[in-house]
């Protein structure tokens, strides 16, 4: 699985994707966030990070399963 990055998360990580190693059992959105904050502690400086699964906002309890596309959504600022 790879995680798409945008805006400030892309700059913090220094890449437009994060590959998740296959040996990481990330079952839910919450598991994914815990792993991310461990691997990239500087993401904690952001006001919030939402997760999008298959291009929709996903709650912490949602299962990643066979998600085709996962992305981090830092605080939005369009308009």
């Amino acid at each position, binding site marked *: 699985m790879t995680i798409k990055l*945008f805006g400030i998360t892309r700059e913090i990580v220094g890449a437009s994707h994060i590959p998740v190693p296959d040996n990481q059992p990330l079952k839910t959105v919450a598991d994914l966030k815990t792993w991310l904050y461990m691997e990239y502690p500087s993401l904690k400086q952001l*006001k919030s990070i939402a997760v999008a699964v298959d291009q929709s906002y996903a709650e912490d309890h949602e299962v990643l399963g066979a998600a085709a596309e996962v992305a981090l959504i*830092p605080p*939005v600022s*369009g*308009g």
Partner: protein
Amino acid sequence: MAMIKIVTHIKLEEAYSYLSCPEAGAINLFIGTVRNNAHGKKVEKLVFEAYEPMALKEMEKLAVLAQQRWHISKLLMLHVVGDKAVGEPVVAIGIASAHRQEAFEATRFLIDELKKTVPIWKKEFYQDGSSWVNAHP
């Protein structure tokens, strides 16, 4: 009917001509532009980035909500990506409806909600640096 797009340049004449329709007695067109200052600093330009497929889906969800809540003849939502200089349009929200009340209300709803949920980000560039808007507590 709705026109929802992520674009590199907003053409106001096209927005207005899309919204024009015989049954509408009101066309309300909101344009958000690049302001030359923020947090007491001089802004030189903005750069917009979008998660395009999801941004379009979120904009479409908002359009559906607006169309359920108000009687709308035509709805337009355009947002830019890329570099934008001071004064340039960056977002356009337009509603054509029978009367002005619903056009004002629906436009307000769409721009307010777009700012909350649509995955688009802006970075402000100043003389002495830059920052992603709204990213930090």
